[in-house]
């Protein structure tokens, strides 16, 4: 069975082979219309293979639909990379063409191409089988490259952004290592052959207009080869394609070309305009518009195709329209204005004609005073329009444009022209207000007025006329003319009643008058001021309705109350109004604004109704008062800040806080403990009355250190906790001591001064000088006249005037009074003072009662001049009237200068001097004038027990 099966199988195979051979012979029978004369060429720039061939054996004028199958292999014939069936109608003697674009540059690999054909025509259904393949056609460009060591392909290729590109290089040497770069970045390639590599670039991006640099370098050497890949952005379809005419002679077609492709000018796209009805075509010179000449009166409908085309892509748009529907008139011209008055003006213009039968619709717009008015006018050639109801002295802008009235397409461009209406007299009276002050019996009235608005002024205001009329003496009036742009003036009036008229004037006329009456009484009656609370939106003010008739109310205030020119503002309100909101952009937080509300009587006299004051926003005080400390004692001191103005503060002052820091840290009654921001603890006293600006800090410790601060407080906070003032209380006893010592010192000083001034008197009273008997002039007088021979005077012969013997214990002094009371009697023996003039012999009494020896040793000479005054006494000599006394005194003093050793004896008596004041008792033979009289020292009586006492008492003798 196996052998049988084997024979059967062999037989079957042979039969099958025979059948296949037959079939093959039938199908591969040479077709009469097989492709012949194949020629292959390449386009390196486009990397295209061009194939051309022909089909023979076609009858004359025979046309046959055929299919050509084309195979392309790369590197070797067996590596088929492309198969394509190309169907076409073949004519007699026709050369057929076919192209294929290679992804890989053709220079980098051999390509092979062959083809066969089949008839695909209904007329010859029996011929529907393929012809034999043609022989392979080889395309090898590498052979023609030359002998350079390195080539990079494709050269200068132009691609669209985002496409894929294959780059390759061909190297002549296998030993070289070659690296390739895209804009400096190395690329990884794929080896195609021993000397060929390829690089696939996917989604290439646009880098620059001049293209992307791709280059390969031999690693060992300077060789560099490269290409520039021109990457184009995708060509867009033209947008907004439109055609229109202005004169029915030329069509102007415009479009938006879209984004730039970013290519060099020579590579950028071109635009072509094609009209299908006429078959005309024009190449546009510009990228966004093109002109088309209209055939005169021959064509109404146009069908345009606009084609944008560059090396890579072609885009077309279409447009079908009727010419008369696309009329876009030119802009009107020669726009003029005539008969321009304050409220009217006539505008004229001309239009460009479009054919003979066209009417234009023109639109006229008038802009002025923020409004626009629009008018439509039908125009053939010339247009005219009257503007009415215009504002005087106002600049208007008129513009006109036109369109085809029969079939609207587009308005023309606008043509604009400005004009200004004439001036007219001001239409409204100026808004006037006043401020009245009384200065030295006069009424100083400051008039304010608001400039008229443009609509009210009707022109440029040149000046304001002010007529002041005395209502008491109506015949007297005064006219003031204030040039613009002043907004106020000041007039001084007496206490009479005045009516003031204010008018505004421009070049055409005068406005209605604004009347205000000013009485001599400024009207500032004491109205209590109320506080109002402001907000960001302003101040809400209200007042009581007035029982008497009022024609309105006026609220005035200063926008800048802190400035000398406070910028007075006012607001007029109707008679039925009792509240308003005053708002101003000038209101600032922390500034107190004062509002006055006036009622205007029917006689136009304003009278003050209410006063309001407030802040738009209260702020905490920024400054503390300047505090003066006084009355500092060991237990208290007084603080005073009377200069602190509560009016000028950024909020209403409600009171003051007095802070006191002490080391003790204890607070007395009325004070409370407070913790400051720096965590310091102190005592705080609250003064609720903002008008109280003094405070006595009591209950302090002597010789203690304190710090205090006074700060105002308001509803929004208190003042800053700045520097505390330091104070130290004094010692407790110091004031008392000062109170005692100071008067004492003063008294002592006073006493000393008195003593000094009255020292002479004191001396006389308290310790007068004791006269020296030896220096008495009486002695010499007696000696020279009575007895030249000295004899001892018998005591019996002496008739003493008076003798006083002092006996006092040593060490006990007599007081002045006691001295006074003893009343010692002295001998006044000197000549009269008047007779004493100059040096002369002294008169000496010799008292022999005393020791002769002592007498001998005593000086009894002449004293030619008074002894020289000691320096301490010079001051007393300076006064002329004191001079005689001084001389006398000094003289006497000199007499008293007796050596202590020689004055150890007591004396008993001395003669009275003739100068004692009793001249009548003088002797008949008065002694010769002598410069001085001296007492000779008298002999001592040996009274031993008295001796010591007498010595001690000797010093108090004085002689006068």
């Amino acid at each position, binding site marked *: 069975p196996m052998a049988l099966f084997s024979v059967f199988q062999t037989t079957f195979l042979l039969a099958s082979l025979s059948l296949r051979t037959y079939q093959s012979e039938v199908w591969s029978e040479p077709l009469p219309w097989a492709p012949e004369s194949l020629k292959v060429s390449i386009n390196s720039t486009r990397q295209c293979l061009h194939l051309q061939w022909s089909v023979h054996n076609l009858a004359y004028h025979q046309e046959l639909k055929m299919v050509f199958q084309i195979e392309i292999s790369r590197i070797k014939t067996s590596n088929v990379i492309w198969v394509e069936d190309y169907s076409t109608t073949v004519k007699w003697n026709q050369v057929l063409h076919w192209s294929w674009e290679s992804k890989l540059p053709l220079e980098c690999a051999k390509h092979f191409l062959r083809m066969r054909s089949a008839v695909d025509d209904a007329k010859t259904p029996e011929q529907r089988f393929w012809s034999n393949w043609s022989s392979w056609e080889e395309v090898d460009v590498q052979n023609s490259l030359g002998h350079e060591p390195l080539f*990079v392909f494709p*050269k*200068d290729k132009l691609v669209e952004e985002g496409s894929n590109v294959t780059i390759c290089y061909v190297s002549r040497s296998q030993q070289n290592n070659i690296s390739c*770069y895209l*804009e*400096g970045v190395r690329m990884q390639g794929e080896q195609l052959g021993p000397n060929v590599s390829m690089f696939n670039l996917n989604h290439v991006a646009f*880098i*620059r*207009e*001049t*293209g*992307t*640099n791709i*280059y390969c*370098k031999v690693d060992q050497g*300077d060789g*560099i*080869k*490269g*290409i*520039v890949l021109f990457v184009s952005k995708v060509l867009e379809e033209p947008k907004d394609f439109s055609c229109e005419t202005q004169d029915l002679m030329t069509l102007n077609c415009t479009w938006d070309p879209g984004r730039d492709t970013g290519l*060099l*000018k020579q590579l950028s796209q071109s635009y072509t305009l094609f009209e299908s009805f006429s078959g005309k075509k024009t190449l546009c010179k510009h990228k966004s518009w093109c002109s088309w000449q209209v055939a005169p009166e021959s064509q109404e409908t146009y069908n345009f195709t606009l084609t944008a085309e560059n090396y890579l892509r072609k885009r077309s748009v279409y447009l079908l329209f009727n010419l008369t529907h696309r009329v876009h008139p030119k802009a009107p011209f020669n726009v003029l204005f005539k008969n321009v008055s304050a409220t009217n003006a006539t505008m004229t213009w001309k239009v460009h004609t479009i054919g003979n039968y066209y009417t234009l619709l023109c639109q006229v717009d008038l802009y002025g005073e923020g409004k626009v008015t629009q008018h439509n006018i039908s125009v053939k050639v010339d247009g005219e329009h009257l503007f009415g109801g215009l504002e005087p002295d106002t600049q208007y802008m008129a513009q006109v444009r036109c369109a085809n009235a029969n079939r609207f397409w587009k308005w023309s461009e606008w043509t604009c022209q400005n004009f200004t209406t004439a001036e007219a007299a001001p239409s409204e009276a100026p808004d006037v207000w006043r401020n009245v002050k009384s200065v030295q019996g006069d009424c100083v009235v400051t008039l304010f007025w608001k400039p008229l608005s443009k609509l009210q002024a009707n022109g440029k205001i040149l000046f304001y006329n002010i007529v002041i009329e005395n209502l008491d003496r109506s015949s007297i009036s005064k006219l003031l003319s204030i040039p613009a742009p002043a907004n106020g003036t000041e007039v001084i009036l007496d206490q009479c009643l005045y009516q003031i008229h204010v008018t505004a004037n421009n070049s055409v006329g005068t406005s209605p008058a604004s009347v205000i009456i000013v009485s001599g009484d400024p009207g500032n009656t004491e109205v209590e001021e109320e506080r109002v609370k402001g907000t960001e939106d302003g101040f809400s003010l209200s007042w009581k309705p007035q029982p008497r008739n009022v024609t309105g109310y006026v609220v005035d205030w200063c926008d800048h109350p802190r400035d000398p020119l406070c910028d007075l503002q006012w607001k007029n309100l109707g008679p039925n109004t009792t509240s308003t909101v005053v708002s101003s952009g000038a209101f600032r937080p922390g500034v107190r604004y004062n509002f006055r509300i006036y009622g205007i009587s029917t006689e136009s006299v304003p009278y003050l109704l209410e006063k309001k004051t407030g802040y738009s926003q209260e702020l905490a005080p920024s400054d503390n008062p300047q505090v003066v400390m006084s009355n500092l004692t060991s237990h208290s001191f007084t603080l005073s800040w009377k200069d602190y103005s509560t009016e000028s503060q950024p909020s209403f002052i409600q009171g003051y806080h007095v802070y006191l820091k002490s080391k003790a840290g204890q607070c007395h009654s009325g004070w409370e403990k407070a913790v400051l921001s720096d965590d310091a603890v102190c005592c705080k006293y609250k003064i609720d009355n903002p008008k109280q600006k003094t405070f006595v800090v009591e209950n302090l410790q002597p010789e203690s250190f304190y710090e205090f601060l006074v700060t105002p407080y308001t509803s929004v906070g208190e003042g800053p906790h700045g520097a505390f003032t330091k104070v130290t209380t004094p010692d407790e006893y110091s004031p008392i001591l000062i109170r005692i010592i100071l008067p004492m010192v003063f008294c002592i000083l006073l006493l000393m001064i008195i003593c000094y001034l009255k020292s002479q008197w004191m001396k006389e009273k308290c310790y007068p000088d004791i006269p020296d008997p030896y220096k008495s002039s009486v002695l010499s007088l007696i000696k020279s006249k009575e007895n030249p021979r000295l004899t001892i005077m018998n005591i019996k012969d002496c008739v003493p005037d008076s003798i006083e013997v002092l006996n006092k214990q040593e060490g006990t002094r007599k007081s002045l009074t006691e001295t006074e009371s003893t009343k010692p009697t002295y001998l006044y023996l000197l000549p009269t003072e008047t007779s004493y003039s100059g040096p002369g012999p002294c008169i000496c009494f010799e008292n022999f009662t005393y020791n002769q020896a002592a007498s001998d040793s005593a000086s009894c000479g002449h004293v030619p001049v008074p002894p020289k005054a000691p320096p301490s006494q010079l001051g007393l000599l300076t006064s002329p009237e004191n001079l005689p006394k001084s001389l006398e005194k000094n003289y006497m003093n000199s007499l008293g200068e007796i050596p202590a050793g020689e004055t150890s004896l007591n004396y008993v008596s001395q003669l009275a001097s003739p100068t004692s004041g009793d001249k009548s008792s003088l002797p008949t033979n008065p002694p010769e004038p002598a410069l001085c009289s001296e007492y000779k020292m008298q002999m001592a009586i040996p009274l031993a027990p008295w001796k010591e006492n007498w010595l001690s008492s000797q010093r108090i003798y004085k002689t006068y």
Partner: protein
Amino acid sequence: MQAQLLRRTLPSLVLGLLFLSTPAMGVCLDKYQELFGQLQKQTDIMQRTSLLLDPYIKSQGLDKDGLKEHCREHPGAFPSKDALQRLSRREFLRALHTTLGSVLHRLTALQRDVPKAQDLEMLNRAKQNIRGFRNNIHCMAQLLPDSSETTEPTPAGPATSPSPTPTSDTFQRRLEGCRFLHGYHRFMHSVGQVFQEWGESPSRSRRHSPRRGLRKGVRRVQLSRRNKRLPPRGQLPR
């Protein structure tokens, strides 16, 4: 951007002012020192790469590592400094005049590869500067003793000589343009150095043989007036 534009434009303006006193209208300055000073200043400005080379490199995308290194002057494309120094003054001026004539033509060819109007304007200004400089050279040659054979002033109009044969390969053309501009600036730098030597030794007059001087660097420079045509691109002095 504006600063860059200013940096490019300012030197050209300065040059333009310098040229005001040059024989644009056919009148030469007869003051040697003044003319020489102008030539020196012009040379200083024309050797600045910011005037031509730098913007060219940037616009052509050659400012990348691996490419910049190849933007070097071809040896011999322009006369070397040594070659210029060996020339006598008259020969030097003639060589300079001729070389700059070639540069003018080459710049015209280069304009075709420059798409941006800004770069085109830059090249136009450079060409005007070169024309003015050549006129000054012409005047300087007249001031030299024995000026029987001098250079000719440069017409202000476009160059009439044929452009160098364009290479179909854009990349290679781009590189060549870059190398050319590099060589041009280097050449002007060498010219400036020669002028500096002139200033240091004003009375010195080189009398080397022109042939010897040109043997190395300016062998192919056309010195004769009768042959003013621009040599083909490959025949620029090497």
